[in-house]
């Protein structure tokens, strides 16, 4: 399955506006799609807690997990197995939900998701490709 890259406007620390191109994938839940970035640097997938509530999870009933980012600050979160579709493929992966994770989209990290798909990036051609094992 091929998917187009998505472009956003970003501002550098020096105030310059740049257009950033990212591998973003819309994953399908029952009532909505969520835009998620494919994040090769993330060990687990992460989503905001409020999204977990919408899909019917009791966030704090999950397995506690401390996620650490580039700034080395640990963010408390809870891991749940989450089901969604990409096209006709049912995905069931571990996702960490955190109230402190205020990202504007989801992150698809290596655990489970990268075990399900071979992911090929063709950035200069504006697309990426998912291939099941």
């Amino acid at each position: 399955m091929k998917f187009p890259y998505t472009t956003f406007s970003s501002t550098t620390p020096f105030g310059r506006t740049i257009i950033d191109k990212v591998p973003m994938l819309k994953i399908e839940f029952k009532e909505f799609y969520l835009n998620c970035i494919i994040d090769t640097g993330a060990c687990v997938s992460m989503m905001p807690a409020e999204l977990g509530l919408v899909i019917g999870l009791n966030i704090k009933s999950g397995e506690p997990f401390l996620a650490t980012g580039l700034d080395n600050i640990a963010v408390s979160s809870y891991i749940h197995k989450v089901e969604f579709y990409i096209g006709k493929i049912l995905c069931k992966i571990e996702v960490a939900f955190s109230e402190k994770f205020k990202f504007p989209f989801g992150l698809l990290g290596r655990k489970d998701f990268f075990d399900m798909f071979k992911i090929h990036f063709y950035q200069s051609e504006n697309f990426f490709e998912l291939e099941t094992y």
Partner: protein
Amino acid sequence: MSKIKEINLTELIKPYAKDNVWLALNTIQNKVLATGKTVKEVIDNAKKVSKEKPVIIKAVQNYSKYIF
């Protein structure tokens, strides 16, 4: 391989970025169906105006904070 057209959210998000709200986009992501302060609110608002399953993303002023 030949290039394919990327999805450009730059102009679509710009009017909402200062408000820091969730957006419900149409499936091909070229139109904002609804906004909301929470994920639940934006989904509920989208249902009122469209039968289309919305694509959810939050409008922020600077995505570079989240993309490394």
